[in-house]
């Protein structure tokens, strides 16, 4: 069985298999939207490969991180909906 990591998404702890991308963890946690557009429309992952920038979230206080490109780390703080 693979190792697990736990991260905090909008204040709630989520545990996922090690190596999962942050986008997967956010999806597993059932959180929507990942972010909001300039005009306030909901947005989420589209390409899954770092091109479209629609999956951005804040990670450890840093805004606009592409969640589909960043593996989950133990204790990571993720904030969505910005």
């Amino acid at each position: 069985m693979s190792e697990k990591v736990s991260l905090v998404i909008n204040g709630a702890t989520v545990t996922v298999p090690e190596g999962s991308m942050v986008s997967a963890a956010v999806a597993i946690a059932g959180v929507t939207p990942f972010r909001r557009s300039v005009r306030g429309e909901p947005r989420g992952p589209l390409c899954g490969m770092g091109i479209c920038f629609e999956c951005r979230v804040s990670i450890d206080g840093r805004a606009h991180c592409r969640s589909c490109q960043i593996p989950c780390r133990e204790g990571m703080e993720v904030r969505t909906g910005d």
Partner: protein
Amino acid sequence: MTSPGYDVVIAGAGIVGAACAAECARAGMRVAVIEAALIGGGATAAGMGHIVVMDDSEAQFALTRYSQVLWNELAGELTPDVEFEACGTIWVAADDEEMAEVWRKKKYYEDRGVPVEILDARALAGAEPNLRHGLAGGLLVSCDSVIYTPCAARFLIEQAQGRGATVRLGCAVVELTGRGARLSDGSFVPADLTVNAAGTWSPMLTPGLDVRKRKGHLVITDRYPGFVHHQLVELGYLKSAHTLTTDTVAFNVQPRRTGQLLIGSSRQFGVEETEVDPGILGRMIDRACEYMPGLRALSAIRTWTGFRAATPDKLPLIGPCPGHENLFLATGHEGLGITTAPGTARLLVDQLLSRPSAIPIEPYLPSRVYQESPHV
């Protein structure tokens, strides 16, 4: 009696042509503006939109201060898309030598009625927590502001149109004389007076003008609201920006209303290519990160270049074109045309209508750069 033509035809609808059009129309003139491409699509769209009082020379101070006051008077009328923000400028001093320059600058501005405030190292860190530690301080000029330039040009053109001006887009002036403008479609627009406001293109319409291109790069980031609060400019900029021989970069960061940051700036002579130069861009970003290390972690979303219209003495050309009756110039604004557009327009219309001006016009008269030519 009405003549078939216009009182004035203006070539170019950058911020300078747009301001001139608005001012001419306000003075009751019948105005036509001819723009080869888009309103504000030249240097105006490429610029940073920092409205800034500068003290490189008395003449530069006079025009920037006069213009800044005019912008502040206009601020209440500007539409929201112009994104006027009275964020002020902080001139950042890295060391004691630059701090001495801060004190000199403070006296210069205060002697001329511009309110400023000295920030010591702690006050600077408090005002802009993302600046690196160990900077000496800065000078806050709170009456400076920023605007979104293409919309500002459009706003001024709409003001002119509201007062009856005719605007023609997508059609170039191919010949400009004191009697009117010949257009690329073969038509002729007659006028009593004409104005060359074609920025870096102005020498093509008035051959012999010593207006050269000075390339600049800018970067815009994603939205990081609150990362920067004032337009921040390094004082070393004063030393580097005026070197005419070498390529220079300087720390210059601007907060946009959207939360985005505009990062500049670079200056290069003798380069015609519009492409982004990765070497210069890298140097510019490195410089910015020296002052603001946190910038490295932000995402840039776009980078571009533009050309400033530079004159030999770094002052614009505003007034009659020597040797060409009824042809006027409003060009050569280098890196300050956004700031100085409203002052330029006032000084130009003062001359068109033989009105007195609020500041001495002599330093900007085109005749000064023709003086050494034996042919004029």
